[in-house]
Structures are given as C-alpha cells and as structure tokens.
C-alpha cells in the first residue's frame, strides 16, 4: 500500500516530464502537418499553456460549428490560418519557439468556461513562462489580441502578433490585381471606344449628371455610412428596419431614399424653371405647373416628416 503510494509519488513527476518532452515534439509535428495551426483539445490546451512552458503560443478560441452561428469567427478564421502559414515558413530555430493553435468551442468548452469567455472569437497570446524568452516585464499571463483597434484582416493581425513572436511574422499581403486590371481595362476601353467616349466626354450634360449625382449622394450621408460601416438595413424587431434611430445616425438605405427625394425636388424645380416656359400652350403649362407644384409640396412634406422621425424635437410640418 505504502509502497504503491510511494511509487506513484515518484512516478508522477517522471511521467509528467516525459509527457512534456513528447508534447513539445508533438506540437512541432502537429503544427508542421496542419499548415502551422495546432488543433487543440482541453488536454492539449493545458499542455500548450503549461505554467513551465519554454515556448510562446498564440491561441485562437473560436466557435466554427454552424450551430453557434458565429459570423465573426468564420470571418476571422482564414486570416488566422494565413498568418500561421506565413509563420510556418520561418527558420525552425525561431518557428519552434512560437506556436499558432486554435481551440474550437466544441472541443474544449471547459476552457472557455475557465477563461470566462461567452463570446468568440478571442485570440490569446501566452508568452514563454520559462527559459530565455520570458518577457522583460516578467508578465507571463495571456495577452488578449485587441480586435477593437485592428480589424480581422491578416495584415493588422500579423502586425499585432509580431510583438510576441521571436522574429517578425513574414506575412506579405497578396498583391491586389484589381486596380491594375481595372486600370488596364479602362485604358483599353477608352482607346477602343475612343470614338464613342469622346463625344460623351465632351458633352457637358454628361458631366452635369456626374457631378449632380455625386453631390446628391454625398449630401445624403453616403460617406457617413461608408466610414462608420453602417449596414444597409438593420434587422430590427418585426422585420428589417431601414431608418436608424437618432439624429446623428443612419443606415445605407436612407442614403438612397434621401438622395431620391432630393432628386425629385430638384427635378420638379428644374422643370418648373426650364421646361414649363417651353410648353407652347397655356393649358398644358397650367397643368404642368399644377403637377410640379403638387409634387414639390407633397415630396417636401414627406421629407419633413422623415426628418421629424430622425429629430424628434422638430416642431414644424408641411402637410402631414
């Protein structure tokens, strides 16, 4: 009895040591086999983040299963993969000091529970806790990667993580052929369709429509939606809701609606100014004037109503 306990007492550290040794080589192999990313379970997670680790590790905690409906996880997954792949190209003596690993919620829910995470994805970087790669400030507890300042794209991710890796991650963004191709296409079309394009380019009304269109879009808050990355419509209570609440906020669809309203008003104004006087007969003029004035009044009061929706305190109204 006593003997047994003694045995176990002696054996535990031994096997622990063995497991650590094997674990390290296992990790290297796993990473090499799987494009630089180790797929973790709870046990391997504990091994990889053991308190006496001499390596550092960047671990992605995600939930890719369709049951979780985690859109950002799917969105981030590829860039994590690419960066890990880029890392696996590094010379072994550096590469084997830092691992990229991913733990899916399905494989290790208790890890999530332990870390108190109830959302995903998260990326934690565990610095080396022993050996010569322990950080200068001695802090060895995991450092979360901050998605709020940098987005999901691999470039910013690799930059963010390169602070912890032994050498900078050799990630190069794939050369973007779109602008080049489009430029070539544009040049070709111009040179081929020269005959067609020239009169168009020389026509003032072409430019007029161009400039009016752009300013209409701009003054309906296009840039706001673009910069803030607001959605086209929001899935609100009871179907899609296309009017953003609040005075300083709007959705993509509002841009179109408002631009359209402005367009109508402009057009009715123009037709009153330019086209009506050209009408040869009195009757038709009176009719046109009536129509366009009606359109102006109605559309403008619609606009006012729309504005009242956005700005509750607005006291005025036109028709309704």
């Amino acid at each position, binding site marked *: 009895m006593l003997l047994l306990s003694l045995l176990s007492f002696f054996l535990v550290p031994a096997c622990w040591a063995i497991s650590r040794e094997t674990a390290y080589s296992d990790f290297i192999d796993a990473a090499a086999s799987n494009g630089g990313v180790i797929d973790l379970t709870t046990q391997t997670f504990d091994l990889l983040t053991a308190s006496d680790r001499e390596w550092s590790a960047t671990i992605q905690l995600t939930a890719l299963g369709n049951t979780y409906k985690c859109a950002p996880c799917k969105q981030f997954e590829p860039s994590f993969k690419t960066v890990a792949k880029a890392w696996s190209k590094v010379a072994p003596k550096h590469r084997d000091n830092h691992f990229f690993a991913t733990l899916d919620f399905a494989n290790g829910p208790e890890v999530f529970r332990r870390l*108190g995470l109830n959302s995903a994805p998260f990326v934690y970087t565990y610095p080396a806790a022993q050996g010569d790669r322990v950080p200068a400030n001695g802090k060895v507890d995991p450092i979360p990667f901050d998605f709020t300042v940098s987005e999901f794209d691999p470039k910013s991710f690799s930059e963010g993580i390169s602070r912890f890796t032994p050498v900078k991650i050799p990630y190069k963004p794939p050369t973007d052929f779109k602008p080049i191709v489009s430029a070539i296409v544009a040049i070709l079309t111009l040179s081929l369709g020269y005959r067609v394009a020239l009169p168009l380019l020389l026509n003032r009304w072409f430019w007029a429509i161009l400039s009016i269109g752009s300013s209409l879009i701009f*003054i309906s808050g296009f840039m706001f939606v673009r910069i803030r990355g607001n959605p086209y419509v929001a899935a609100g209570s009871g179907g899609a809701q296309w009017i953003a609440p609040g005075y300083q906020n709007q959705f993509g669809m509002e841009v179109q609606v408002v631009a359209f309203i402005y367009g109508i008003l402009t057009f009715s104004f123009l037709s009153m100014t330019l086209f*009506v006087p050209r009408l040869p007969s009195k009757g038709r003029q009176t009719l046109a004037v009536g129509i366009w004035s009606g359109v102006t009044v109605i559309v403008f009061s619609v606009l006012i109503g729309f504005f009242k929706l956005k700005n509750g305190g607005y006291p005025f109204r036109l028709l309704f």
Partner: protein
Amino acid sequence: MPDAIPLPRVAPETVANTTSLLRIIALSLISGAAIASRLFAVINFESIIHEFDPWFNYRATRVLAAKGFYEFWNWFDPTAWYPLGRVVGGTIYPGLMATSGVIYNILHGLNLPVDIRNVCVLLAPGFSALTAWATYMFTKELKDASAGLIAASFIGIAPGYISRSVAGSYDNEAIAIFLLMFTFFTWIKALKLGSAFFGTIAAVFYFYMVAAWGGYVFITNMIPLHALVLLLMGRYTNRLYVAYSSWYAVGTLSSMQVPFVGFQPVRTSEHMAALGVFGLLQLVAFSDLVRSHVGSKQFRTLLRVALVASGILGGAVIVLLTLKGWIAPWTGRFYSLWDTEYAKKYIPIIASVSEHQPTAWPSFFMDLHVLITIFPAGVILCFKELRDEHVFVIIYAVMASYFAGVMVRLMLTLTPVVCVAAAIATSTLFDTYLDVHEPEDPSAENSVPVVTVSGESHVGGTNVTVTTPAPAPTPSKKAKKAQAQAAAPASSIASTIAEATGTAGVTTRQDRGVFGLGSRLVVVALWVYMLLFFVVHSTWVTSNAYSSPSVVLSSRNPDGSQHIIDDFREAYYWLRQNTPEDAVVMSWWDYGYQIAGMADRPTMVDNNTWNNTHIATVGKAMASSEEVAYPILRKHDVSYVLVIFGSLIGYSGDDINKFLWMIRIAQGIWPDEVSEPSFFTPRGEYKVDEQASPAMKNSVMYKTSYYRFAELYGGNQPQDRVRNQNLPMKGPTLDYLEEAFTSENWIVRIYAVKGDDELGRDLKVANSFNEGKKRKRGRPLVRRRAVAAV
C-alpha cells in the same frame, strides 16, 4: 404681344436709381438680419465667450490688446502644456486676434472705451454681415444682382454658417468664411477681367485667410483645380494666365510670412497642386506665345513634345522630392479627408474630436433645409451657361459636398456654395415667373375673327368705288393700335427693369414664357412660402440648437421657465480664488483652454493637441490605478485633478463617456500598460455598475467620478443618469487624492493631489495608520537572499 399685367410708364433712369437704392436698402436689411439672428446667445444667456477654443483666442487677444503685437508675436505661454510650455506666436493663426486687436485700437482711438471681451463676442456677427456682402458680390459675378441679393439673404441666416458664428463663438471660422468668399470673388473678378490688380487683391485676401484659418488649404487647392479644369476644357486665355500667376506669386510669398505656415507652401504636399498648376500654366503660356509667332509645323510638334516632357519631368521631380522627404507628405488631418480609415487607426486624437466625425443626412438638412433641395438645380443652371466662373461653382459644389460629408465641421465650407447655387436657381425661377411678357399663343392665333366688310360711299357727283379687303375689322384694329401703344412703353419699362436687375436676355425670346396670371401666382406663392418656411426653420434652429455657450448650460423647470446650470464657471472661479497661482491642474484636454482662460491656472494639456505623448500621459494617469498614476502626477507637479461628471443631472458630455478615447490614446503609446479590452466586461460591454471590469473600477477616472456619489442617495440604490446603470452601493475610496471641490450639480469635481507623507511612507499605508489599523509585525529584511541574488 400681350402682357400678363399692364405696367405703369416710368422713366428708365428713375427705374435705375430706384433699383440701386432698393439694392442698398436690401443689403443693409440683410446685414441687420444676419447680425440680429446671431444675438440669441447674448440675449438668452449673456455676453460670454463660448465653448472651448474661443477661450484661448480670447485670452490671446487680451495679451495682444494689452502688450501690443510684437509681445504677442513673441509670447511664450508657460502655463500651457505644463511643463513644456507653448510658443504661442509660432503655433497659431494670428489673423483673428489681430483683427479684433485692430478694431479694439480703432475704437479706443475714437475714444470709445469698449471692453475687449465685447469686441471678441460681437466679432462673428459683424463679419457675418460682411460675408453676406461678399456673397452678394460673388453671386453678382455669376448671374446678376437679384441673385446676389437672394444669395446674401440665404448666407445671412443659413444655420450651417450661423452654427460657427453666433455672438460669442470667437473662433477663426468667424472671419474665415468672409475671407473665403471675398477671395473667391476677387479671383473670379480677376479671371473675368484678366487683371493683375484683382489677382493681387485676391492674393492679399488669401494672405489674410492664411493668417486666419487652417482651412486656407481649401482655397490653395480650389483655385488651382479651377485653373486646371479650365486648361483641360481648352479654355486657356491670357486672362487666366495673368490672374493665376499674379495670385499665386504674391499669395504664396505673402503666406510664407505667417510664422505658423513658414515654408510649408514649398515643403508640403497640400500646396504642391498650386505649384504644379503654376508651372503648367507657364509652359502652356510659353507654347501659346511661340505658336503665335512661329509658323513651322515641325517646330510646333517639337515644342509640344518638349512641353509634355518637361511637364512629366516636373511631376517626377515633385514625386521624387516627396519620396526623399524634402516635401513633407500630407499632414494627418488633411490626409484623413481622403483615406477615411487613416485617422481612426493612426491618429486617435483627430478621430476623437466630435467635429471631425462624418456627417449624417439629418445634419445636412438641419443646416440647409430647403436650400439643399434646390442647390443641385442651381448647379445644373450653371452647366446651362458654362462660363469660367460657373465652372468654378460646379467644382466648388462637388468638392465641398464631399468634404462636408466626411467631416461635420466642413459643413461650413459647403454652406456658401449651397447658398449661391440655390440663389441662382431661385432667382432664375422668379425671373421666369415674374416676367410680365406673355408669349404668342399659337392656339389663340386662330381664334381671332377675320371679318371682311365691303363698303361703298358716294361723294358728290363723282362715282368712285373703293373696295378694300379689310384684313381685320375696325374695332379690332383700334384695339390692336391701343394695345400697340400700350405695349411700347410697357415693354420699354420692362426691359429697363430687366436691365436694371440684370434679367435681360433670359426670357425676352418669343418662343418661351409663361401664360396667364394663374400659374405665375401659384409658383411664386409656393416658393415664397418655401423661403418663408426656410426663414422660420433657420430662426428656430439658431435659437434652439446653436445659441448655447456650452460653458453655461440651461434646462427647463417643470413650469417651463429657464434654469441656468453654471457649474463650470463656479468651479473655475473656485480654482482662481482658492488655489495658489502656480497650482497645475490636470484635466482631459477638452477643458484646458477654459481652465487657462477662466481659472487662470497652468494646465497639463489643452485643446491645441499638438503633443500626442503628453496627452497620452494624461490618458494613462486617468486610466490607470492610483498607485500608478500618483508618480506621474507628482512628476508633472500636478496639484489638482479636474473631472467632469454628469451622472447626477444627466449631462451626457462628461468624462466617463470620453474615457474610451483617453484609454485608446494612452494605449497608442503604452500598449502593454493600458489595454482597451480590459475596461470592458467579459461580455464586451462598457459598464460602470457592479459588473464593471476591475481595471475600470480602479481607474482614477472612475474613482474620481463616483467618489462619495453613493452617499447622495442615503442608502438607496445610486443611479447613473447618463449611462442609466445602477451603481454599486459602496462607492470607491481614494488614497492619493482628496476631494477639494464639487460644484452645485456635481458636474465639475476637483481633487487635490496629496503631498509626501510626513514619514515618507506610502500614502495607502499612512491612511490605514491614521484610521488606526494595526499593521502586522515585521521581520528583519533577509540580507542573505539579496546577497545570493547579486
């Protein structure tokens, strides 16, 4: 031809005189309206300088008025950016201060002892009148005087411009918009006449603009763009050459005299466009000259090739210099206009400023109302008759609407062009519908009865028979005659009026016009109503939205009467009267200028955000725990910490709401000491209640905000009325700071930084000792370990 209404006969010169008289009266009335509508702030509150930057301008102006221009130029302000200090002369646009200084001196020269504060407060309204006049002149160049008058009245009351120029908002924009419009006017004038004189005037006002506002870069790029477009349209003339060259040469040289600008016009990319166009113009002019003298075709082709080559060469040189770093790349503030992601990522300070946010459509409508709907029409009309100046307006319209969309504050540059375009449109409309001429009605033609009467008359014995086929019966003939007679003078009067008001040539053609009074009345009434609506709207917006000096807040009592909340000045005056002269006050940078202006105390950071690191230091001090913050505070000799706290009365612009920016900016400098995620709950929410993250609860900002707040509720559940969250029943405690002052509504809270402990203990320990807590018995320090470690 018939008229809608018969006009009385008046002598042409009388008409001319009356119209000019009316024009003058109208202009003066417009100026009156422009000034009056900006006085809401003074009437509702008092004659006080508004929000933040104006306080510094006001302070600087006081120095200027007291010590004279040279002392002002060499002014080193040791109380700003303590302990770095600020070389004020070299880091500001002195135009505003110089202007009000001149006005002040003139008034005193006339023995009118006006307080400099009132000069500063009323400067913006005064200049708005000038802006109206400048807009009138500008629009007059584009269309005619009536359009000019309409434009002037628009700009006079358009909220988009009032928002930056109410009485008391003593900021650079107050005079800048006038300079903008007048520079553009003189540029157009110079372009039309091809006169170096007006070009130079434009340059002079451009210099004034450069001295007044950083937005001068807008002019610096608008005018070259205009010139370039004209070149591309094949509209090169010597007029363009003369105007541009004189403007650029004189303007650039003079603009380099402003200390803050210095050599930027030749060293930074913002100004390279102007330089490039200048060079291009020289080349084109040269080729033009040669073409006019040399005939041989080969030579011309050779020349053209040489020119293109040299143009490309010049461009290449500029690019090379930029890469070499001789030409600084675009400054962040300017660059962020194009790459809208840039600021958010790399310069959070710029992104944090509220007026640098993009603009949602309601603000466009709020600021411009009906004008925004008819301004595209005005642009179209500009396309209709595409003279050089119309090209300018078109470019201006497109560029300005883009910029206004990207930054709220640039709504200011959009407003004038919207007013101008809208005025062109409206006046065209009224020209059409107020013109009394009626066109020939083809359908009415055949309704005129043609009666032939054959009459015979015998006179004496002779027998003569006359048969005259009468083209029309006599009465009708008579009517015709009468009409003709009536028409002659009427038309003449009409034409004179047309000339006087410049409407000539628009609707005098026969094939178009409006029939009858009905449609005229309908359209005119409709648009008069619309414009009246605009006036009402502008007045409402001005009085309600844009006339509060964010220094003094106001709320409504239950009975509807106005309740003034004056915490800021209460606190600032407390500082002024109860703290030593050299007590450094640390607050978030928004309040730096106000503290310097009203409390007259040194501040660590202020609204002139030129030093990211220093601001980040304040952010770090606010975001980290007391133990970490205390050394920072002592190192910077900070003796008071000032925080804005709105939770009691629900003032949403308080520091807890700005806290995230402090964290972000600090994180930019110390990424591994301050990290934004640690201030969110595990669920990623920004909370101040029980679930608030430990980093949040320990931060100096949180502690100083909610210190003793729970006691107000006497055991009931304390509640944050801004965040609408329930606060912990037990508030935070302070060891290194102690509460010094809290204003009436708790908006401003001031804390004193404790000095060293008498025994050099850690202040936390000292506190626990003073509370009589026993500390556990110590043991001798183990020396051997230390030895081993060494």
